[in-house]
């Protein structure tokens, strides 16, 4: 049985060949990281950021929303796994799906804000993330661990967590790949470009936006859960750190929103750059990274992949 479906368009054949080749190479590489004794922590976070940036791309690149409070899903996912494991004695593998569900529930609670657009949506989303953090901070200490947070004790298993993170990344990329070629993906893009016109073309805009929003919320919540397991500790300070949103946005924008490869390449380049700068200039890490980001935005405002496709529009059909 052929790996690729029967495709009448040669461009589609190239597209899916690239998907299988790049995806396969990435999977083999990541799968071999613990086996070959490479830096597990670095690659764990690389996969985490690829997933976060790719899921953010659904919200921003596909749907046109810029949620400045994106960390809320991540933080709620982290606390869901931690509370279920520590307080309800759930096995980690059973607790993790609940993190995703918690992300979906939070997305539904935030759904009324999808009526807003542009900067107003971004600011409200930031405020809601702050509210989430306050709510969890002020919950009884016996549930969330108060200012000390929750420690998962003997549950830590970095290599297992690494492979679960890999599975989450592969699932996220597969869903986004499907979405980008699906009717829902086209409806989302039309809504992003002109919501009123899309509605007059028969698109149920609120419903389509909600679907995109749910996809964008599910994966960061899972990432939060897996990271809680990996680091073995969760507290509100780190789980709801705005730097998580900032990095997600920067990595996605650096690669180029609206494509699948953009956030992947953006994450690879920026995480690698971050690591390099941190090693060479540990005290000036954030300053230099900030300057690098400014340079990137100034010289490649559409991101790496976006700029390439701008210059070579004929490649658009082939690049995932």
């Amino acid at each position: 049985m052929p790996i690729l479906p029967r495709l009448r368009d040669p461009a589609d054949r190239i597209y899916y060949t690239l998907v299988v080749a790049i995806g396969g190479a990435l999977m083999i590489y990541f799968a071999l990281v613990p086996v070959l004794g490479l830096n597990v922590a670095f690659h764990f976070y690389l996969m985490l950021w690829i997933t976060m940036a790719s899921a953010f791309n659904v919200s921003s690149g596909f749907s046109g929303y810029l949620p400045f409070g994106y960390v809320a899903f991540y933080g709620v996912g982290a606390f869901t796994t931690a509370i279920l494991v520590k307080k309800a004695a759930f096995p980690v593998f059973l607790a993790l799906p609940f993190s995703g569900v918690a992300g979906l529930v939070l997305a539904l609670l935030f759904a009324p804000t999808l009526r807003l657009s542009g900067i107003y949506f971004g600011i409200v989303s930031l405020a809601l993330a702050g509210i989430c953090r306050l709510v969890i901070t002020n919950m009884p200490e016996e549930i969330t661990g108060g200012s000390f947070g929750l420690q998962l004790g003997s549950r830590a298993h970095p290599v297992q967590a690494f492979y679960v993170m890999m599975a989450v990344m592969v699932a996220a990329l597969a869903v986004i790949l499907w979405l980008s070629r699906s009717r829902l993906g086209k409806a989302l893009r039309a809504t992003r470009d002109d919501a009123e016109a899309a509605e007059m073309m028969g698109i149920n805009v609120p419903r389509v936006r909600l679907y995109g929003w749910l996809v964008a919320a599910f994966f960061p919540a899972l990432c939060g859960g897996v990271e809680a397991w990996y680091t073995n500790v969760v507290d509100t300070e780190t789980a709801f750190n705005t730097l998580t949103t900032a990095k997600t946005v920067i990595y996605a924008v650096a690669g180029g929103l609206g494509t699948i490869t953009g956030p992947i390449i953006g994450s690879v380049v920026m995480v690698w750059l971050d690591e390099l700068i941190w090693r060479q200039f540990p005290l000036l890490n954030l300053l230099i990274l900030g300057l690098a980001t400014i340079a990137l935005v100034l010289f490649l405002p559409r991101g790496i992949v976006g700029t390439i496709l701008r210059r070579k529009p004929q490649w658009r059909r082939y690049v995932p």
Partner: protein
Amino acid sequence: MSAAIETRGLTKRFGGLVALDSVGLQAASGETLGIIGVNGAGKTTLMNCICGLYRPDGGDVFIAGERVTGQPPHVVAHKGIGRTFQVPRVFRKMSLIDNLLVPVLDRRASSDAELTERAEEMLARMQLIGLRHNYAEELSGGQQKLLEMARMLMPDPPIVMLDEPFAGVHPVLCKFMIERIEEMSGAGKAVLLISHDLTSIYRLSSRVVALNQGKIIAEGGVADIRGNPAVIEAYLGA
């Protein structure tokens, strides 16, 4: 037999401004109804009320006899209305093919390949097939108007509304568009045509409605409208 599209007493206010004042009109299948009026007469507001973008303050809209007043635009679109816009509203960061697929995304009975094939046929009719993989934002203004027209026709709606299709368009392209509009009415569609270009309106329309300050000031055949003193006054002043 009911009209393909009908409005009764349609009224729309923006604060103290009455944009539409009890407008009643109807168009039958195969008929082109021209709607003329100076800027601010209420022509586009009328279209926006019909397609559900604006909720009218009074009156009703009927499609094939079914009341659709106040229903959301995507529901009204599925009743069989397609439209274009005065300033083209294409999906800028989508290919021409994808632009055309948007109005038919809910057609589960048709495969993606079938819909893409139809989209390519439509683009070929509009002489845009060579650009089918370009982003819509890369087209000229006139080409964007053609793309909108193709997109509007993609689901084969029985009613089409064209808002200033000839505005800012080269005469050669205007002629091409006029032929396409004639094909639409020839195919049995009810066409509502808004234009400042009276020559085109008079050529294409079987009946004309003249609006001024939200009210219908004249209605009838082309000859009636041409010589109507109220229309002449509205266009040229007293």
